[in-house]
């Protein structure tokens, strides 16, 4: 007794079965299950990696109320996780398109809807395809900071990621027996199917090699199509938000760094320079997937907080002199504020900071997204 969900629906008249709907419209052997299941496996892994690394980045950049403390080590934590996020997203371009090509005849399957359940499954596939294409395309545009839309990219990219990963999970659950069966069968040789899988692998390797050098320094010379080079920018270091973009000019002698806490005080630039200076080799690691190491020199944030009478383990708020901007201020949680590597830097690579790098003073801390490394710092508060 078929349930209402699986009861066959009436078939549309056969005369409507034209063009791509015809049984013989898709003769290529590339559309079979052995090929599809293998591409799907790689794409599924890529999306899972993107989802997890994306969540890490999202929560670090926009900490929810339950996330009050993040370890400040390893120094390279965010650099690696976000580098993997963007590299995997770029590798997903050929994987996703090849997977969708392999299953493209299914869009034209006949009859279009066999039962209510079949219709629901097709709706979930629509959600999967739409969300997957959106995530890859919008991420690719974000890495060049091209926003041809009127929504806030990080928020929409975040929620659509749940649609993508959720519909993938549902898809795997529905197709599990078919997938398992197809993966047990070898891909037949001799009709181009293996060649197709090899070509997809070659495409993944190629798009990776020409871009991953934006974060993997040894491959920088090969990053000929990456939006960034880790050594190109003022003082040999890329910039995300320029002084011109933020409306910042060089400071005058009137500059003071205000430090608020139980014992508030303010420092001139000369007084800041007279304090004990420390060096730290730390990466700037941007959400857009590039990263670059630099030698920073300046005052330990911990020393400034101690002098203001901050209790041990206190967090701090660091505020830029920018008038506006989404990341004008950032919270430095306890582990980061107490880390000896966290500096208010006055110099980078042996020179006073360029204005684009946040002159006169910027925050630089280990294991932290670039947008939270506040530039043009005017105020530090003990929280």
């Amino acid at each position, binding site marked *: 007794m078929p349930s209402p969900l699986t009861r066959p629906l009436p078939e549309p008249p056969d005369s409507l079965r034209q063009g791509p709907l015809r049984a013989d419209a898709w003769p290529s052997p590339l559309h079979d299950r052995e090929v599809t299941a293998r591409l799907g496996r790689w794409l599924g892994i890529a999306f899972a990696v993107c989802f997890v690394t994306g969540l890490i980045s999202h929560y670090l950049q926009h900490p929810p109320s339950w996330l009050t403390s993040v370890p400040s080590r390893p120094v390279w934590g965010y650099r690696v996780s976000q580098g993997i996020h963007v590299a995997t997203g770029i590798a997903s371009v050929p994987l996703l398109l090849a997977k969708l090509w392999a299953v493209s005849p299914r869009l034209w399957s006949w009859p279009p809807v066999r039962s209510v359940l079949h219709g629901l499954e097709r709706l979930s596939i629509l959600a999967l395809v739409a969300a997957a294409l959106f995530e890859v395309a919008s991420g690719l545009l974000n*890495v060049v900071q091209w926003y041809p839309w009127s*929504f806030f990219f990080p928020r929409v990219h975040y929620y659509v990621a749940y649609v993508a990963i959720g519909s993938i999970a549902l898809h795997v659950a529905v197709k599990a027996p078919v997938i398992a069966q197809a993966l047990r069968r070898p891909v037949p040789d001799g009709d181009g199917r293996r060649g*197709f899988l090899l070509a997809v692998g070659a495409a993944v390797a190629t*798009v990776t090699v020409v871009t991953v050098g934006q974060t993997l320094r040894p491959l920088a010379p090969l990053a000929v*199509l990456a*939006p960034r080079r880790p050594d190109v920018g003022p003082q040999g270091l890329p910039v995300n938000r320029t002084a011109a973009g933020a409306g910042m000019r060089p400071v005058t002698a009137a500059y003071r760094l205000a430090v608020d806490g139980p014992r508030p005080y303010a420092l001139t630039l000369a007084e800041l320079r007279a304090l004990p200076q420390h060096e730290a080799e730390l990466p700037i690691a941007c959400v857009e997937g590039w990263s670059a190491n630099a030698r920073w020199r300046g005052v330990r944030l911990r020393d400034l907080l101690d002098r203001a009478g901050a209790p041990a383990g206190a967090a701090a708020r660091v505020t830029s002199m920018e008038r506006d901007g989404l990341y004008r201020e950032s919270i430095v949680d306890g582990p980061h504020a107490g880390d000896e590597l966290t500096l208010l830097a006055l110099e980078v690579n042996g020179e006073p900071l360029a204005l684009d790098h946040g002159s006169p003073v910027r925050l630089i801390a280990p294991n932290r997204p670039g947008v939270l490394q506040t530039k043009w710092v005017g105020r530090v508060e003990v929280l």
Partner: protein
Amino acid sequence: MKAWRIGLGAIGVAGVLFGLRGLVLGGVATHWPVPAVWLVAGVLAHDLVLVPLVAAAGWVLARVVPARVRPVLRGGLLVAAAVTLVALPVLSGKGDATNASLTPLDYPRNLAIVLGAVAAGTAVLAVVRLSSGREA
């Protein structure tokens, strides 16, 4: 149906609903009608533009190119298309124009070099395949 499949499917449905709910309730940050248009436009662009183009290319390939080198040429085209798609944003010239460190390279030239290398690699493989006489 095994329990793990039901569990995974339920988690998946919950994920989809959480994402859709976040989009719809996100206010000005998500502005849901706009991503909705982008989501649908992506599917239409893929299914009605990209797939027909690829199908047409495959149709021509099947009629013009000898069967023995067809997989090699198809592979070369696939790699070239993937690289070109990935390069479209950096070729666009969009982004903050005041930022000299963003898209600092000569991307049209670089893409031409990469495509040239892909073409050369494809040609070498095609020659090897033709001379070895091995069937596809």
